[in-house]
């Protein structure tokens, strides 16, 4: 099982979501995709999109105003 991290720091919506969508296509079921973000709008739409598609989602606050959205492909 592998882990892929994409850096979306400094990027506003919808860029993180599009990047996440593309990256998720490339990985296998069971793999983890970690999306690093610092725009709070992405904190809403990235997890919402991932959950809607049935994936497992967890958000970790790395620093003040900086998060990692962890998505497990299902």
């Amino acid at each position, binding site marked *: *099982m592998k882990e892929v991290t994409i850096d979306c720091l400094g990027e506003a919506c919808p860029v993180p979501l599009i990047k996440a969508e593309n990256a998720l296509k490339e990985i296998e079921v*069971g793999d983890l995709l970690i999306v690093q973000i610092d725009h709070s709008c992405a*904190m*809403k739409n990235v*997890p919402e999109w991932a959950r809607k598609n049935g994936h*497992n*989602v*967890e*958000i*970790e*606050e790395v620093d003040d105003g900086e*998060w990692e959205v*962890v998505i*497990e492909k299902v």
Partner: protein
Amino acid sequence: MREKKVEQYDVVVIGGGAAGMTAAIYAGRARLSTLIIEQALVGGLATNTNEIENYPGFPEGVTGKGLMELFHQQAKKFDVKFKLTDVRKVELEGEIKKVETFRNIYEAKVVIIASGGRPRVTGADKEEDYLGKGIAFCATCDAAANTGKTVVVIGSGDAAIEEGIFLTKFANKVVVSIIHDEGKMDCNEIAKAAALANSKMEFQWNTVVDHFEGDEELKTVVLKNLKTEALIPIDCHTCFEFIGYIPNTDIFKGLIDITNKGYIVTNENMETNVEGVYAVGDVRDRYLRQVATCVGDGATAGVGAEKYIAESEAFVSHVMKEDKPGVAYVFNAIEADQRELLSEIEKMELDYKDQYYFSKIDVYKSKGLANRLGVKEYPAVAIIKDGKVDCIITENISKESLLKALK
């Protein structure tokens, strides 16, 4: 399956709304390692409210989001950790409780349930397409955007009718869909009279939502008359649904006491029927659901958690020793005769402290330790052998009877 990472905390709070964050602030300030698990955004339901004018301390009013951000900062100040994910499973029995997310298992001495609830929806066709795009649940939040427009309100309870009246201050017309026969509403009589007298309100009796129509945004709510089966399309800007509230308690079913409506039952100390598990805020069976009431719940549970953990530690290290038999005297310090007996026990302690150990438990402040011993009436003495309660003596407590029991 990926191996789940196990982490230990003193307190795990499920839900990061007003109640959960307040509980965490109290626990964190008491130097308990505290984790909040929130499935969506920190702040909970209060963040949906644009203006909170009745939360004390903010005479100019405050936005729900702004207020919750302050709660968040305060919790962080006391080193509360936040994890944004949903809880999949809990194990609540026993000393160490488990809270499972998709990647982690959190072990905790205390679990505080602050999972709140969500508005009930009609389940009508195409409803999902318009949630947040014309279907709303909070008049306070969305009223101003409907100035001069037509809105539909679903429901006839206190919330529906009172919010409906509020909406007439902005909207041109408020159409209320009510499931009952003409003249019957679920709300209080005062609200009902005010609504019926309000010229901007129009009532569709015996109706439910059949389906929703629109393109990107909602355009039309199509009601159905239950008696005539007739479809009644109503063009509107927003449809407000006020048909109740569903507590988020699915994962706790069968594990703790829950009312038939799904709310968690607690006593006034926010304790559920499972030791070390508390419930606070909107998820709890209670009279009023406001930020102010959530804060009170949270404070109570936070302090309760601290006491419970301190007692657990004292219980293991001082009361239930294994090396020699013990005498645990349980008494109420405000009763004179029980204080007298205390001095008897203390005299005995001087003579026998090498053979037995003695603990004195005052129930005046907290009954926690007494409950753990299984002592329900006072005064009483629990005789402890091999780290377990051997017997409980409630009558004729004397040096002789205790020595006999200790043999």
